[in-house]
């Protein structure tokens, strides 16, 4: 069939197709030298380094804020737990009562037993108080150490953050200078 020639120039040529090929073939593409820019532009997302740097800064600030907020909330929880610890017991009233006690002669034996019992109770209370106070002191010292450590870590984090900001700022300046140079002299190939 003649359509084979129309399709891939195989088979018997069609006179009309041959005539059209000959006539229209004169208009065939004559390639002119292609005038291309010295280099291909960067992808669109790389055309905005200022925005990218700003986004990095914002993310870093957000991260630092979240980190500080989390550590502060952890600190507050620790403080609340310390407050809930052993409470001091006031034994002033008990001591005064023991000092002002004056037993009568008839009740001597019973009173002696009561006094011993009160003294033992007071002694137990005192030991408990001392133990509680020691625990409070230990907890306070632990809290102070924790606070010192957190202060130190906060200072270190702040230093790191400042360092990152300085680094990002220098990068941003570099990119802006490069953009300026490209605008003045065209992009480097």
């Amino acid at each position, binding site marked *: 069939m003649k359509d084979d020639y129309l399709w891939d120039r195989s088979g018997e040529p069609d006179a009309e197709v041959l005539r*059209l090929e000959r006539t229209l073939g004169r208009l*065939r593409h004559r390639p002119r030298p292609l005038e291309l820019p010295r280099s291909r532009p960067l992808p669109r997302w790389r055309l905005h380094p200022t925005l990218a740097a700003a986004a990095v800064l914002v993310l870093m600030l957000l991260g630092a804020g979240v980190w500080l907020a989390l550590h502060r909330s952890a600190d507050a929880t620790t403080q609340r737990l310390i407050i809930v610890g052993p409470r001091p017991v006031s034994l002033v009233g008990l001591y005064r009562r023991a000092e002002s006690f004056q037993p009568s002669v008839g009740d001597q034996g019973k009173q002696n037993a009561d006094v011993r019992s009160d003294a033992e109770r007071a002694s137990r209370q005192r030991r408990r108080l001392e133990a509680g106070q020691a625990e409070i002191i230990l907890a306070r010292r632990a809290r102070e150490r924790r606070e010192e450590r957190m202060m130190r870590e906060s200072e270190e984090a702040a230093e790191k953050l400042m360092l990152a900001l300085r680094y990002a700022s220098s990068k941003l300046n570099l990119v802006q200078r490069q953009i300026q140079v490209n605008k003045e002299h065209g992009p480097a190939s």
Partner: protein
Amino acid sequence: MSEVKGIADLFPVSNARQGAAQAGPHRAASPHARLVEAVKGGDRQAFDRLYDLYGPMVHGILLARVPWNDVDDLVQEVFLHAFKRLDSLRDANAFGGWLAMITRNRAVDYHRRSREMEELPLDLAHNAGEGVDAEAAEAMTLIRTLPETYRETLMLRFVEGMTGPEIAERTGLTPASVRVNLHRGMKLLREKMGVLETT
């Protein structure tokens, strides 16, 4: 033998889409795709090679849509645009279809801008182009009265001298679609030429 049969062949546009979908991004890289990757890697000579390979396709597609006098400038613009935007092309194997789409969009922009700037004759058939000999101008005028799909395929076949398989390979259409377009376009053209001769 060359009679096109089958329901699928009756729908060239859907066929083309199906072909593009089947192609997918995971097929093996063709030599043309390797050229595209080379350009992405900074090889400018590879783009010159692509210009040689695809210039006729771009020229033919434009010739089917815009006045002959402006086609060469538009070819340059299309390749310049493609050069700048090549990074947006994900599948290097789809370069031909991508470039054809850019070319068609560029032709649409051309007409939009022309309407904004001045009143041009709406019928391209009367604007075959100065500097074209009478016989070629007459043939072009007839082809430009055909539906766009057939017009484009016939321009690539007769003006650029591309075969059906070459048209399919360059434009990203399926061979079946191209064959249908050639067959039906030629049939319509014959009818129009017959009418012209009888009048």
